[in-house]
């Protein structure tokens, strides 16, 4: 089930008999979609390397007259940006680690062990994965307050598994199922315990899925906004995504610095997804929808 996406051969549908009109239409659309996608990012990048004078000049140009790195410098040297960066990194890494370890155990148990309630747990995982954060942030706000974790990154570490863990377990489940049972049976007969089987046989075979799970958890944690926005309130506990909102009121001329900050915030997920594009697309379409 995990091979549907990128395994196409060289014969693609319709190509040989596409009329010239359709070919032209295809390339016009392609050009449009590239511009539609790229222009906002390009504009962000250009603004981040322009001086304020240039950005706020009514007769602005698309390319900067000279490259100005002051906004980046300001972010790194002044203010709490580096603290936000650190917070985002810590919170995302923690939720990734949790999703990997607990997700692997959970997925293995659900796919390989016979116990009552297996089906219920599988249904529960899908159901809870689909619960939107907008239904959960109010009660979670109370729970975090009761645990005295308000306004700390520990509160975020606690709630981020709510969206990473169900999905990661689910994704690993579908992957584990594709691993032949015979390998494990041989190891079990040889006296290898369940945990040993998981670590020595299943997980090495599931390495591509683990990469996707790690990427997914990290970027979802990194990109998260609502919980961080609601559960933290001081400069030192903000994550990058929430920190960006604070930059708005800081200065009269904020766009340059803001776009530099936005670019830095966008960079880790973009780099990761670009490097692992094939794996991720396959993983996500397997987890969410199957072709």
């Amino acid at each position, binding site marked *: 089930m995990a091979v549907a996406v990128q395994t196409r051969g060289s014969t693609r549908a319709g190509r040989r008999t596409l009329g010239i009109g359709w070919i032209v239409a295809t390339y016009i659309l392609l050009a449009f*979609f590239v511009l539609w996608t790229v222009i*906002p990012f390009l504009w962000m990048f250009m603004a981040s390397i322009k001086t304020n004078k240039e950005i706020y000049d009514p007769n602005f140009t698309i390319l900067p007259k000279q490259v100005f790195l002051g906004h980046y410098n300001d972010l790194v040297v002044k203010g709490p940006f580096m603290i936000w960066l650190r917070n985002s990194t810590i919170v995302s890494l923690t939720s990734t680690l949790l999703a990997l370890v607990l997700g692997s155990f959970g997925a293995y*148990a659900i796919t390989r062990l016979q116990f009552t309630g297996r089906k219920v747990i599988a*249904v529960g995982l899908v159901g809870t994965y689909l619960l939107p954060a907008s239904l959960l942030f109010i009660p979670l706000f109370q729970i975090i307050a009761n645990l005295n974790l308000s306004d700390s990154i520990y509160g975020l570490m606690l709630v981020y598994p709510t969206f990473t863990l169900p999905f990661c377990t689910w994704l690993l489940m*579908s992957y584990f199922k594709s691993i032949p049972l015979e390998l494990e049976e041989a190891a079990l007969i040889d006296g290898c315990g369940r945990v040993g089987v998981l670590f020595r046989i299943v997980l090495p075979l599931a390495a591509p899925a683990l990469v996707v799970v790690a990427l997914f958890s990290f970027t979802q944690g990194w990109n998260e906004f609502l919980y961080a926005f609601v559960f933290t309130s001081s400069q030192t506990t903000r994550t990058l995504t929430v920190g960006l909102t604070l930059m708005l009121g800081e200065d009269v001329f904020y766009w340059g610095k803001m776009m530099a900050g*936005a670019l830095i915030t966008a960079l880790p997920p973009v780099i990761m997804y670009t490097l692992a594009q094939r794996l991720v697309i396959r993983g996500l379409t397997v987890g969410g929808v199957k*072709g």
Partner: protein
Amino acid sequence: MVGPVVLIVMALLIYPFLDAFVLSFQERFIGQTGTWVGVQNYVNLFNGTDQIFPKALAITFVLTGAAILGKLIIGLAMASVLNQDIPFKNVFRGIMFLPWAVPAVVTAYVWRFLFDTTGPINGAIAEFGILDDYLYFFNDAKLALPALTLVVIWAGTPFWTMNLLAGMASISQELYEAAEIDGAGTAQRFWHITLPGVQPVLFVTAMLSTIWTSANLTQIIILTGGGPNNATMTVPLLSYLQAIPGHTLGAGAAISMTLVPFYAILVFFLTRRMLRQEG
């Protein structure tokens, strides 16, 4: 082995959800204990003089409907283009998935900048003298919702493209070859083979996207905060404003609960579908 997952799901998803339900029948301020008020929070939603809740409900459906339609059309077109045998196909795929990879906050601020009076859209308007004044997109009651919808579509389309491409790749090539022999044109093949072929994927994608689009708060908080004059007030945003800045957790929970029947239907069908595919 499955214990920790079950524990976390129970403690952080199922319990809070039930807690929100109970909370919605209480009057409760942040930091205080609640008092039971029965269905008063729900009754208040329709009794307010400003009628803000019915309005927010309508806006939520309009925004979600328009955004889903936009993502469907653009996603289908994008997937069809990327499914062709074009050079550098993987590079183009990578580029078009970018809006999906970046944080929603980044999307929101980039578009806020694009729509700003110092941004390129207003720059072009001034440059070519199209209008006498700038367009204040997110401060204009008529333009705010369309502009917001555009941003939501832009950010959400790659998810559709990705899934539709996967669906298209699973369609058997023999079908196309047979249709070709029978003399079917490109449009006919798309209509009679591609569309029915991606239909199961389309169904699941549409439901997932409906849940996430209607529940989305990030872009609205950053772009409009519900304004101007509540023109972009959605149910999740109203619930947030009541519960957190307004300190009335019970009333906020009641507002968020009103969408639960709608989510329940979607989650029911999705869960069945996803488990069945799981085999």
